[in-house]
């Protein structure tokens, strides 16, 4: 078993089977059947996707086994804090919280985008160094 396909897909199929059993034999209503079968289908799809993706690739990017990541991300913290304020604004505290939070979240998202671009540039620079050094 070299990928996550078998455990995730078999688990998902088991959920779908139980949902069908409940629906067909025990008269389970639509919402719970859909919740269970939906979770099963999502798991099976996740397993299939993980099996088809090349293992070791990072979400950011990878090439030739070189990985570039960021050790610190204040932008992510800003996004989380901004999202929190915005949600509190919507749910309880009003517009001032919402707009402040939204502004902070936008700043954070921009910072994360900048980090992603910096990482990509760094990766390209490293790849260039590797090519000049004769690395295949």
């Amino acid at each position: 078993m070299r990928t996550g396909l078998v455990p995730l897909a078999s688990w998902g199929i088991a959920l779908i089977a139980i949902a069908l059993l409940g629906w067909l034999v025990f008269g389970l209503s639509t919402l719970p059947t859909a919740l269970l079968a939906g979770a099963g289908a999502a798991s099976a799809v996740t397993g299939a996707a993980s099996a088809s993706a090349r293992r070791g690739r990072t979400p950011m990017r990878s090439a030739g086994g070189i990985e570039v990541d960021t050790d610190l991300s204040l932008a992510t913290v800003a996004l989380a804090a901004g999202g929190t304020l915005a949600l509190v604004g919507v749910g309880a505290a009003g517009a001032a919280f919402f707009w402040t939070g939204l502004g902070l979240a936008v700043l954070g998202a921009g910072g994360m985008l900048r980090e992603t671009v910096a990482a990509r540039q760094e990766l390209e620079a490293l790849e260039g160094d590797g090519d000049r050094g004769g690395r295949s």
Partner: protein
Amino acid sequence: MTATARPRLPAADRGVLAALASTDHKVVGVRVALTALAFFLAGGVLALLMRSELADPGLQVVSHSGYDQLFTMHGSTMIFIVVIPVALAFCVYMVPLQVGAAAISGARWALAGSWLIPLGGLVMWSGWLTRDGAGRAGWYAFDPLSDRANTPGEGMDLWVCGVILATLGSIFLAGCVLATVLRRRAPGMTMLRLPPFTWTALATCLLVLFSFPSLVVAMGLLMADRHGAQLLGPITYQHLFWFYGHPAVYVMFFPFVGMVAEAASVFSGRRFFGYRPFVIALLGFTALSMSAWAHHMFTTGAVPNQLFALTSTALIVPAGVEYFDIIGTLWRGAIRFKVALLFVVGFLMQFLLGGLSGIFVASPVLDYHATDSYIVVAHFHYTLFAGSVFGLFAGVYMWWPKITGRYLSERVGRWHFGLTLVGTSLTFLPQFFLGMDGMARRLPDYSGSEGWTGLNRVSTVGSFLIALGTLLFLVAVVRSLRGPATAPSDAWGTGMSLEWAASSPPARHNFERLPPIRSYAPLFDLRHPEEGPDDEEVGPLRHEATSSRSHA
């Protein structure tokens, strides 16, 4: 060959900035664990207040409304901000190490998740500062009890926001752990060579990813309802809530079973017994645990009770397999009764009571009697506190040297264990009898003529013993952190999985070199080459490529 470089990106140091914004999975895991510890202490104080209120009939330590807030915030804090996050914290910290990865997948998502949980907790707790007080509709916030007409005030709104934030944080963390297992395993680390704890982490992440979104939806709809929309009905809400709520119980169980399995193996010096049945049972366990949620709704009359009684009762089969695997690991092992192993034994005893009482309430006939009584309170505290927390401490005492490079005091740890064992038994065992005698949960007071005073006093004394044990644990932590870091890589000398090949504490990118991975216990294989790996998938050794991995 893999190399990591990041010159034009912000560089990590060990300062405040790193503590706030590091993407290192170990820093993220520790941050979540510290958050959970802080809220554990706060939630524990709420529990002591409740137990003080119930120690004698007629006491008015808090008002009735205050008592509603206490049990709501105690349950919400412990579930949303303490036990689930601390389970995921260990997954975030240990899984990349156990699969031989240099980092966690989606590190920035993990960082975001690690902040959403404490922020969610603070938002939830900020309800105490509002005029009507904190949320007070129970940790489940059933509709229509939780709507604006029945629970007015911003405190409840803040509670809803806090739950959404903490749940999103948990989802982010689980997604990163699952992606790490699926995509970042070291060469040679096939799925059937994952250590037991990593398998339990995988099961946990499946539950989080595919059931927790329903809580976010439920809370979103509840928030809309509280702002005038009419989207929810009681049964719809309960389905959405319990589709999260029951799997959440296993999120608060599986990682601790994994810790117990690892600790049993390390402190008996034996490879984990029955690995493959354990994995199969775990996946079956996970599927059944997703399918049992409506046993919380037996008394609504709106669900097919036979189906959910069947799936709930069937849970005993995989649970039994896991129990016997753990006991089989200890059987004839070279047992060393370190504190971690004491907590393993405590877990096996205590969780048995919690689990078996769950089988009784999985029967609709008995559930009609037990529902909303102290039987239920005793049952879930035996599983979540007397069970899972014992598993947690088994993991804490075992992995503390790995995380800090230092050991916790065995002497203080034994007192901690003893007080916690006696305390939990005194606190929760009497609650079964109180429930059988008709004491309803959420009751802020009772009459002396009910005959419940003695058992309630015992329960209250027990809760303070737990608090004393927790204080001793904090003493052990402080003493340990003030001492020198002397732990070697394999801190106990009998490590099984890859985390014991990393330095203590591990370096930024975890490993300088990895041993060959030929089974789920590669360090055992190194120490005992004569035994050969217990694995049918032995393939070519690819450790040379792995061991040449360099990290900046």
